[in-house]
């Protein structure tokens, strides 16, 4: 349980050769072993979605995956959303529509929405609401998150 294994995590295109216990969760490895603290821990039991990252194209909760399971996979986190200084349309939309207050859940929502929209650019508004209901936000009451994601979806489709 406590013997460490060498693995390689590829986060936002950069490889991190790290050594982790088999029980190390992916989110702990991303935050502590790789120093990428933009991904947050909200519940560690897969409900709140604050730790959502994109692994091989799929948004998933990094608290429910072991780091060793992500060995060799492509991981994207909030730090990789912007293109240099150019924010991702989803990040811009959250700012424009006031889709965040304390901002703790925001990275999880951004990765969830981006992951789903990249996979299903033409997702219906109703299905998008289903998707957004999988993460928790305690500040915004969701109104502006929904607005922001719909606006960004439109912009992403237009690209």
């Amino acid at each position: 349980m406590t013997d460490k294994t060498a693995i390689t995590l590829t986060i936002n295109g950069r490889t991190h050769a790290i050594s982790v216990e088999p029980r190390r969760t992916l989110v702990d490895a991303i935050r502590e072993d790789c120093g990428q603290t933009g991904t947050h821990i909200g519940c560690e039991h897969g409900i709140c979605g604050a730790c959502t990252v994109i692994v091989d194209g799929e948004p998933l909760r990094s608290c429910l995956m072991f780091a060793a399971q992500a060995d060799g996979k492509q991981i994207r986190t909030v730090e990789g959303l912007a293109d240099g200084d150019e924010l991702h349309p989803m990040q811009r939309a959250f700012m424009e529509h006031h889709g965040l207050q304390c901002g703790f859940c925001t990275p999880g929502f951004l990765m969830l929405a981006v992951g789903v929209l990249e996979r299903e650019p033409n997702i219906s508004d109703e299905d998008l609401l289903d998707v957004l209901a999988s993460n928790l936000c305690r500040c915004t009451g969701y109104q502006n998150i929904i607005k922001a994601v719909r606006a960004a979806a439109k912009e992403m489709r237009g690209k």
Partner: protein
Amino acid sequence: MTAHSKGSGATWVGRAIRRLEDPALVAGRARFTADLAATRWVRFVRSPVAAGYINNIDMPAEGLIVTAASLKGVKPIRPMLHKFNYKPISQPVLANGVVRFVGEPIAAVVATSKERAEDIADAVSLTISETFPVIDTDAALNRAAPAVHADAPGNVVLEGRVKTAEFHAAWANAHKIIKLEARSRRQNATPMEARAAHAAYDPATGRITLTCTTQMPHLTRTAIADLLGMPESDLRVIAPDVGGGFGQKMSLATEYVVLVWLARKLKSSVAWAEDRRENLIAGFHSRDQVVTLEGAFDANAKLIALKADVVANIGAYSCFPTTCGVEPLMAMAELPGPYDVRQYQCRARGVATNTCPMAPYRGVSRPVITLALERLMDRAATAFAIAPDEIRRRNLIDKFPYTSATGLVFDDASYKQTLEMAVKAIDLPAFRKRQNEARAKGRYLGIGFATFSERTGYGSPAFAARGMEITPGWENVIVSMDPAGGVEARIGSSPHGQGLRTTLAQIIADEIGVPPQAIKIVHGDTDRTPYGWGTFASRSLVISGGATLIAARKVRAKLIKIASHLLEAAPDDIVLADGEAKVAGTDRAVPIAQMAREAYTQTHRFKGEIEPGLTETGSYDPPGTFSNACHIAIVEVDVETGRVTVEKFLVAEDAGRIINPMIADGQVHGGVAQGIGNALLEEIIYDDDGGILTATLADYLPPTAHEIPPIELHHMETPSVNSITKAKGLGEGGTIGAPAAVINAINDALKPFGVSVDEMPATPQRIRAALRKSGKAA
């Protein structure tokens, strides 16, 4: 006009500019407490039982384990109130011989990784002789109940009473008396970031820097220094980005005290991040109150006297700094709400139990008293056979200033106007038609009203009236301009999601003529900011905003004097705008940056009229003001399953002058969503032995995007005379009104069944139980 420019003549205040907080937050570059690297991690061993005596703590050899025995000389937390028969009770930072609730910290384990600390904590073996726990207030008030604290026999820690002189005479004249018992079950504020702390020792100075997720950094410093007996100047407290608080993070966490003690002892840095289970069982709870309310009405359905009994379950300890009086005493002072009722009698008690301590949570008592009062209004409307909006129309106050039966002075507001605005916007006749059509098809729609006041921005006299030893009312703000013209405001408030950096920058921008984007607001660092109380009680925009305005005006006055010298013009002719001082009606101007430089380097030019530098302090301690709103909920109740769907939510609100409408709307949205969650979903459930059955977010249910309907907002702006910015606070209103509106709507929907649901959350189980009891539903 874009979000980053300002049209000529317009003010920054009142505009929905984008938040200055956001760029770092959306990029993942914000810094929350748990983001700090640590070499040593702390895990707390917590009591698995609700009540008992600790006989033995069997510790594994590995790691460092600290218990109460190690903490000799550390004082217990003993919050004080000098009124209302308050019985001071003490909370040791680690349980000392006795445990009083499931989750109470007994030992702290320190290890080199989180995982190791958890392993060692799991290996700590506790021998506890269990005693009989008292979990709810009924049990705690029983004569035979064991005392949770020997210092408070009978478990009543506080009892307030109030009665107006002519109460009995009015009561005797009642045409109708309506009685009900309203109850709020126990809830948890559930900020998405649970509590966390990181304490670091500086070998050069011996000082400790405690970075923690708190709403009150300065008082955290004072309190911990007191408890540990260390010089306060040796402790620096930093609240970095804080992931929501809603009141839970204004009360002192015993864990933070232990962290500072450990950092001093080990001369090293130690970190703790609460997990969600710990937060749900031990991170402070809220609500859990019963209000028994009787209203005496005259023949015109006018409320003439109100009688209330408030019982608040305060948990095992009294929270610091507000004390456990915060809920019952606010209930007692504010229960008459926005209604004109002259005669009032109330008894409010805080009762200790073997449960997690209570702390303030967004709304503080008012969600519960508003539920009680708004149920009373709806029940009375039914009894008088008038509409729910009509009974409110007959009872709402409309002459200001209005002094309430408890002596509170209500400033100008728009109780009736917001009611009319909401009723018109919802189109009540159309709804009633739709409701009847739906009923004919076996579908049950309902509409619910809540009209309420939200007392905000109150200064130290309001806290003194409760007899509090600590009266966290005023705020200081230091606004300075450096020699390059850079503007900084250092504030004692401690925002954590409210967007205060943006709104305060808007206030300063209008005074000194630089855009808000160029103004830095510094908060959450006791080394960098003036002493202040923090962010809670819908106070920061009013009080810190007022102090900011005062300080900014002083800087403005200096700049104008400097400009009048440099431009050789009368002070009255100087205009500060767009980074320049101009002589009105001319093209003569001087850049503010140049004036700033000269304020430091050329002071001889100002003939001793202007003190050197551009640093000014503003201090503000206002009497308090009242925001108001009318909430309307439309719900559908599935009578077969008891499930409630909120179809629509409408808010007509008045918070005085609005500094940033986008941020204000966001506060209302978020408050309403929490209110809907409180009304329908959220409940901490204890079993009979004091164990918690809702220790995950799969059991304790904050609402998701599915449960929150579109929220329609309507605004009025009645400027406050009790706030120099004319702004009133609005952080809590959403949460205060929404539960009552939703529960009233449920009752309206279920009118054909003759049931009354007066409890939150109104879960499917409770609604089905009420329907079954009625005998009119399957």
